[in-house]
Every structure is written in structure tokens, then in C-alpha cells.
């Protein structure tokens, strides 16, 4: 009898537990979505009308404010808000593409005239006019926290002769900052931004974005796991450029771990992955024996280059010496480092050749035309242990141990720095690899309490200006918080040259090149940073549902959804050229 009763009780409890499990899960899913909804009653995205991307977002999408650089959801720049021009790193002859602007020209050395395209509209139907552009530019003057406020001091005045023309008057020295603005800063909606306080203009989540771009935010389908967009049927690019998106929905997935992302890509749940996936080159080059096979054999994966290095280059990884500490402050010691390290070995062993070793200046391949080959052949260096030993001897190095920092869990950098330790040991330098937490490493670099560190904070840009601006930035503060000149190189001559670039007209390419050559020479002679390899612009395509992704053989667009690429470079064009399979 009592056993009977206990059985009933146990059954009850089990039933209760089972019920308690479904209720929270259900409401979890529903509360995970934003509350306001405008879409039709589709409950799931049709697979053959949806493009799935990953590799960009590391937190739940909560923010669609393009001024909030660190936090905005994937697609805020590019899919919702657009720039006046795009920069195409794969076309060195004609790198700037008019986007919202139909054209732009320096009418005199201090005046720039922008002409907007016809028929630009915001997604609420109102017209995008010169007033919006002028307002966006003026924010640089009125709000010091906008990402491009360094432009502010150079602006004299902005005028709008008509709804499609903006004329900007500059003080001297604005060229570099301005050309950077043209392709990297999206135009925001005056009607929205002007109602906000200066702090709100940067920090408001902008959850009902009114953009000008090719997509609309699908709030109802946006969850903590992904952000969803639908194609904007009224986008100006359809009529003006004949660009037609063949997918209806774009879903960008928040990253789990690399293994999870690899699994999702292989299962065809992701079409475009911008994750770093170690060992991806094996999966691309060999038809795999297991898993989902498609007609061409293997997993149906593709990359920009069919063979090594498979990926475009995204940024330069440096060995960053702390120039305020011995022995790193000794030029001969730094030369010994530069000659002792063999980045080719790291590219082979650690990366299975999905990265390329850096050239001596460390400038990315898209800036090749700016590299002075005469300077490099005269002052450049390459792997040479014998020379390394000579320089080490000349440096008076007394066998001190130096630590090489890389953030814990960045496995490729961690193993890479172990390889460097071995290579340095071979010439007689005692180094140890050290893996602090990311935040601790950040603090070490900011406060200058490190010896050597792996660092990659010089990203893609349209000229070498940004690169040298990072390397030679002065003055040096006690805390180098802005991530500029972390190596603490005090070189006023080089910094003067960097600043001089601002007053050389873009038309004067010869004058600019002369300065770049000088900077490259100083860089190679003083070695404030030691370039190692180019981190890849990781992009893996699963071609089961969508084809015609950018490759070296076809269209030269950037296949990258990352901030600073999507919306600034040609990723939107790459997306517009995708075709459904079958």
C-alpha cells in the first residue's frame, strides 16, 4: 500500500518536473525575441531563400547604432547604414567606389564637393538628402565621442546648396582623415539623431533602425542566438546599380566555439563562415571520406583562393617589443629578433599555410603599390640565424629571459609564440611564452609592463597612413589606452612625417609616396615592430545552397561580414552576386 502511494507520488513528481521543463523553455524562446514585430507569419526561414553567416558576432544582438562601434549587431553598417564610398582592397587601380555618393571631388585644396545619388531613401520612406550627410559630418564637431571626431577640428563649414550636394570647407591637413571618413563612416538619419542627447547619439540601442541600406531588421526573428534581416525592396541599389539579392533573408549567427562553428559549416547550416577554423585547408583540398558529400566531392567548401593561402589577408601580426625596457630598447637586439624568427615555419606548422608570412614593412598586400622596393631591398631583412647571432653579440645581450605574451585561448598565437621561443633559443635568446587572460594582456600592453607581445591592431586601410599612425603616434602617455604606439616608440621625426601626410593632396601621389618611402625606411631601420605574418580574412563558403561566392578567379569582392569590412569594403556586392544552387 505504502509502496503504491510512493509510486504515485514519484509519478506525480516526475510529471511535474517534466511540465516544469517545457514551460521555462517555451517562454525562454519567446522572450528571447524582441517584442515588436512587423513581419508576416512565417515561423521559420525557408532554407533556399536564406543566407546564413557566422564569425562576426560574439554577443547577442542588442544594438543597431552605427556610432556604437564596439557593440552594434552584424549588418548595422552595410546592411542598414551606408557610407558615401566603398573601399575595394582588391582593386588597386580604382579602389574607391561611389556608394551613397554619385561622386566627390576636391574643387580647390580646401573644398570637397559631394554629389549624392538620385532617389536615396530611408527605410521609413523619407528621402536621404544632403541635410543628413551634412548633419553626420557636423557631428564630428558637435559630439567629441563620435568615432570620427578627429575630423572635427579640420572642418571650417558645411553647406548644402541643394538636396543632393554637400560642400565641405576644410582647414589645412585634413586629407587623410577626410578620405578615411568617406569610406568608413556611415551616414545617419538626421531626423532620428538630432532628437537625441550627445550621449544617446553614441549609446542609444536604436532598436527600430531607420537605415538606407539593402536590408531591413527583422526584430521578431532576432534572438539571443542570431540577428535576422529581410531584403529591402525599396533599396536604391536595385534601380541604380541593378543589384538584386537572390536570397530574401539573411541570418547572422552569434558564435559558439570554433568546433561548433566548424560543425555547423560542414552540416550546411552556415553558408558563409568568417570564423578562424584551424585545419580548414585539409577539408577544402581533400574530398572527405565522411560527412555530407556534394556533387563535387568533399564537403562542398570553398575559399577565396583555391590553394594556399586560401584566405585574403586581414591584418598584420607583429612581435611588439616594449621599447622602454632592456634589452628590447637595443636596436641590435631587435635586429637579432627579426633575423632569428622564421614566420614561414609558423605559417606552415601552425596555420597549415592559411596565412602568409609578412613582408618586412608589415604593410598588407593590398598596399603593395605603396611599398618602395628600393627601400625594402636595401634595409629589409629575412630569416637568417647567422646574422641574428652577430647582431645579438653586438647588442651586448646578457642572457636575460624575455616573456612573449599572447592572450590565453588564442591557440594559434599561443602555439605560434612557442615556435618563436624555439627559434629564438636557436640563436641564443632566452624567451618564454606567456598566456595571460585577454584583459590582463590588454592591461600589460596599455601600461607598458610587458617584454614582447603578439599584437595585430593594424587592420585594413586604403593607404599606409593608418598603419604608420598606429606605429609612430605621439605623445606617449603613461597609459597608452588608445592602442596606438603600444611599443612606445619615441620618434618625433617619423611622427612629423605621418602628420605631414594630412596636408598632401590625394592628387599628389608622388608627394605622398615620397613620405611613405621615408616612413618605410625609418620603420625598417629602427624596427619599432617586427612584422611576422598576415592574419587571414577568414572566409569559408559552403556551396550547398548558394554559389558564386567571391574567388580570385571571378569577382573581386570581399567575402567578410566583420565590422570594418561589411559596409566599408565590397561585402554587400559579394552578397548581391550570390546565386541559388539548382
Amino acid at each position, binding site marked *: 500500500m505504502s509502496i503504491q502511494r510512493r509510486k504515485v507520488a514519484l509519478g506525480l513528481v516526475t510529471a511535474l518536473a517534466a511540465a516544469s521543463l517545457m514551460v521555462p*523553455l517555451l517562454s*525562454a524562446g*519567446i522572450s528571447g525575441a524582441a517584442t515588436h514585430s512587423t513581419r508576416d507569419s512565417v515561423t521559420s526561414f525557408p532554407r533556399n531563400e536564406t543566407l546564413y553567416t557566422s564569425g562576426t558576432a560574439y554577443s547577442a544582438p542588442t544594438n543597431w547604432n552605427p556610432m556604437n562601434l564596439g557593440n552594434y549587431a552584424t549588418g548595422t553598417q552595410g546592411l542598414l547604414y551606408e557610407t558615401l564610398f566603398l573601399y575595394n582592397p582588391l582593386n588597386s587601380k580604382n579602389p574607391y567606389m561611389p556608394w551613397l555618393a554619385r561622386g566627390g571631388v576636391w574643387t580647390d585644396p580646401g573644398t570637397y564637393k559631394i554629389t549624392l545619388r538620385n532617389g536615396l531613401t530611408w527605410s521609413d520612406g523619407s528621402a536621404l538628402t544632403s541635410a543628413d550627410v551634412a548633419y553626420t559630418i557636423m557631428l564630428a564637431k558637435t559630439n567629441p565621442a563620435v568615432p570620427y*571626431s578627429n575630423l572635427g577640428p579640420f572642418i571650417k563649414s558645411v553647406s548644402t546648396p541643394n538636396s543632393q550636394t554637400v560642400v565641405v570647407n576644410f582647414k589645412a591637413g585634413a586629407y587623410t582623415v577626410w578620405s578615411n571618413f568617406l569610406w568608413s563612416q556611415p551616414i545617419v538619419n538626421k531626423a532620428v539623431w538630432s532628437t537625441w542627447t550627445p550621449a544617446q547619439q553614441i549609446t*542609444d540601442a536604436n532598436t527600430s533602425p531607420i537605415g538606407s541600406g539593402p536590408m531591413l531588421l527583422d526584430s521578431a526573428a532576432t534572438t539571443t*542566438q542570431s540577428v535576422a534581416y529581410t531584403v529591402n525592396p525599396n533599396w536604391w541599389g536595385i534601380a541604380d546599380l541593378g543589384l538584386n539579392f537572390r536570397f530574401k533573408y539573411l541570418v547572422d549567427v552569434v558564435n559558439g*566555439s570554433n568546433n*561548433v562553428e566548424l560543425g555547423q559549416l560542414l552540416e550546411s547550416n552556415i553558408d558563409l563562415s568568417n570564423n578562424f577554423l584551424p585545419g580548414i585547408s585539409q577539408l577544402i583540398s581533400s574530398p572527405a571520406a565522411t560527412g555530407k558529400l556534394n556533387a563535387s566531392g568533399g564537403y562542398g567548401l570553398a575559399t577565396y583562393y583555391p590553394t594556399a593561402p586560401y584566405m585574403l589577408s586581414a591584418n598584420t601580426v607583429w612581435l611588439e617589443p616594449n621599447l622602454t625596457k632592456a634589452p628590447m630598447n637595443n636596436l641590435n637586439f631587435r635586429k637579432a629578433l627579426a633575423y632569428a624568427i622564421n614566420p614561414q615555419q609558423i605559417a606552415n606548422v601552425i596555420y597549415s599555410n592559411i596565412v602568409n608570412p609578412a613582408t618586412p614593412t608589415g604593410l598588407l598586400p593590398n598596399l603593395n603599390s605603396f611599398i618602395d622596393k628600393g627601400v625594402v631591398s636595401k634595409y629589409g631583412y629575412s630569416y637568417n640565424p647567422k646574422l641574428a647571432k652577430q647582431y645579438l653579440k653586438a647588442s651586448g645581450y646578457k642572457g636575460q629571459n624575455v616573456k612573449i605574451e599572447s592572450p590565453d585561448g588564442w591557440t594559434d598565437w599561443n602555439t605560434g609564440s612557442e615556435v618563436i621561443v624555439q627559434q629564438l633559443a636557436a640563436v641564443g635568446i632566452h624567451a618564454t611564452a606567456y598566456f595571460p587572460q585577454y584583459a590582463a594582456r590588454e592591461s600589460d600592453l596599455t601600461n607598458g609592463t610587458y617584454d614582447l607581445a603578439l599584437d595585430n591592431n593594424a587592420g585594413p586601410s586604403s593607404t599606409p597612413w593608418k598603419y604608420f599612425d598606429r606605429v609612430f603616434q605621439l605623445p606617449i602617455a603613461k597609459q597608452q*589606452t*588608445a592602442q596606438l604606439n603600444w611599443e612606445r616608440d619615441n620618434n618625433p621625426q617619423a611622427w612629423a612625417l605621418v602628420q605631414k601626410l594630412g596636408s598632401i593632396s590625394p592628387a599628389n601621389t608622388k608627394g605622398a609616396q615620397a613620405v611613405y618611402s621615408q616612413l618605410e625606411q625609418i620603420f625598417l631601420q629602427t624596427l619599432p615592430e617586427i612584422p611576422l605574418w598576415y592574419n587571414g580574412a577568414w572566409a569559408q563558403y559552403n556551396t550547398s545552397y548558394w554559389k558564386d561566392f567571391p574567388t580570385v578567379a571571378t569577382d573581386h569582392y570581399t567575402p567578410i561580414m566583420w565590422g570594418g569590412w561589411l559596409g566599408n569594403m565590397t561585402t554587400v556586392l559579394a552578397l548581391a552576386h550570390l546565386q541559388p544552387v539548382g
Partner: protein
Amino acid sequence: MRRYLARKLIIYVVTFWVAATTDWLLPRLVPGNPISLLLSKLSLQPTTYNATYNLYMKAFGFNRPWWKQYLSFWDALVHGNLGVSIYEFPKPVTSVIADSVLFTLGLLIPAILLAYFAGNKVGAMAARRKSLDNTVLPVSYILTGTPYPWLALLLAFLFAAGGIGHFFPISGGFSYGLVPGLNWTFVWSLATHWVLPFLTLFLVAFGGWAIGMRNLIIYELESDYSHYLEALGAPPKLVRKYAYKNARLPQITGLALQLGVLVGGAVLTEVTFSYPGLGFLVLKAIGNDDYFLLQGIFMFIIIGVLASNFIIDIVYVLVDPRTRVGIAGA
């Protein structure tokens, strides 16, 4: 009873104060500054950087002296305000947690309850049948000794990645092609994503309960009162009933202690499956120096563990007559 509860309540309040203060303090002792971490990847020019930095420092109140920050932490806390998340800026921590907490509860509550009841049941059964004991005991030892992430990977390999088959999805809380809503596709997706993380938590805890119950029952069956009952000619069923009742008490205490461990287990399991619960969030909050989020999640865990302990305290009074006598006598 009232005095018993009052005494317990005071202990809980003091515990809460200590835990909450630690919770406030610990993230701030981590090296690094969350704002400079947030701004580190933006490649801003120095003047812009400083303006943005000051804006955020002010927005988060980091520009005030520490004791003011501490006081306003308590002030906000009693008003149910946990601040704004840095990593999911500008979402309030309460709503970040609200999006994830139900996933964790949906894993934890069934896992704790089912493992407790099933484990005790199977353990008790094993104690009285030699043949069953020979399988239950070693299996339980293996299960309870298995680290959560390892079991999670094993299950993922076997049932999701094709070791045995592709029965369940490998990660996430639901398929991201779905629009959340009350429809079968979505509910089914939730359920299939739930199975493997649940199994991980359930199996490890199950092993522990089964072993505990088996040992306790054997101990109770060997004790004097059992032999006395047997000598009086009581049927074995009755003897086992009393043994079970007595063996249950240490298990209930164990349940209270287990709660904290299980929350930790849930963190590791969720991370392994990228399951969008609190555990997954903890990892992200730590990685981004998100004081407020970390604080909020731990606050939630602290309150959860204290509340369940309180409930267990009360349950204990109900199931153990000796406590009742003790209270009445006091």
C-alpha cells in the same frame, strides 16, 4: 518553529550580505578595465578615444569613488536594478538574464529533481538486489566521476556528430532558422536541443544519488533497529520502508549541498553545447570584464541557492520528526 525560522532567516541575511559584497568586489579585482577592453578594438584616435572613454565611465558610474559605487550597488539592488551590461550594451542586466535564465532553469530543475528521484530509487533497488548492484554500482561510479564537459563532448560525439547517429543538434537552444513562437516546429526544436545538455547534467547527478542511496540503505539495513524489526518478524518490505525513510535524510542535506555544484556543472555543460543559458553567459561576461552582468548572474545564483536551501530547511522539518521535536523542545 517561529524561533527556528527567525534564527535561520538571520543566518540567511548575513550570508546574503557577505555573498553579495563578494559578488560586487570580485569582478573589480580582475586585472584590466572593462571600458578600455570594450574600446580596444575600435582603433580610435586619442582625442576621440578619451571622449568615448569618459562617456562610458560616466554611463557606468566608474568615475565615482569605490564606496559610492558600493552604496549605489545596494541602492540599485533593493530596487531590483542590476545595472547595464557592458558586453551587451546598452541592455539592462535584468533583461539579459531574463533572456537566458529560463534556459538554465529548464535544464536545472528537471535535471536536479529527476536525478534525485531516479537516483534514489535505483540506488535503493540496487541495495536489495545483488545482480542489479553489480551493474548499478560501477556505472554510477563512472557517471558521478565524469567531468561535465567530457560527458557533454562524449554525448555530442555519439548522438549529434554521428558517432552513433545524428539524432540531436550539436549546439544552441533552438535552430536559428526559426522564428520563436508557440508553434510545433519551434517547440520541437527547443526539445531536441534540450535533450543532450539535460542528459549530461542528469547522468552525472544520477550516479551520485544512486551510490549514496545504495550505501545508506545497506547501512540502515544493517543497523540495530532493522535487525530488531526483522527479529520481531516484520516483513522485509516494511524493514526496507523504514530504512528508506531514514536513508532519505542525509540525501536531502546532500541535495542542498549539491545545488551549488550543479550550477557549476550547468556552466560547463552550457558552454560545451553553446546552450544560451546563464552558464554560457557567465563565460562571456568573464571574457569581457562585464562587472555588471557577472554581478547580476551571481546575484541570481546566490539568491537561487539560498532560497532552495531555505526550502530544503523547511522540507527537512517536515520529513524528519526529530527536527520537529527539537524545535518544539527549544
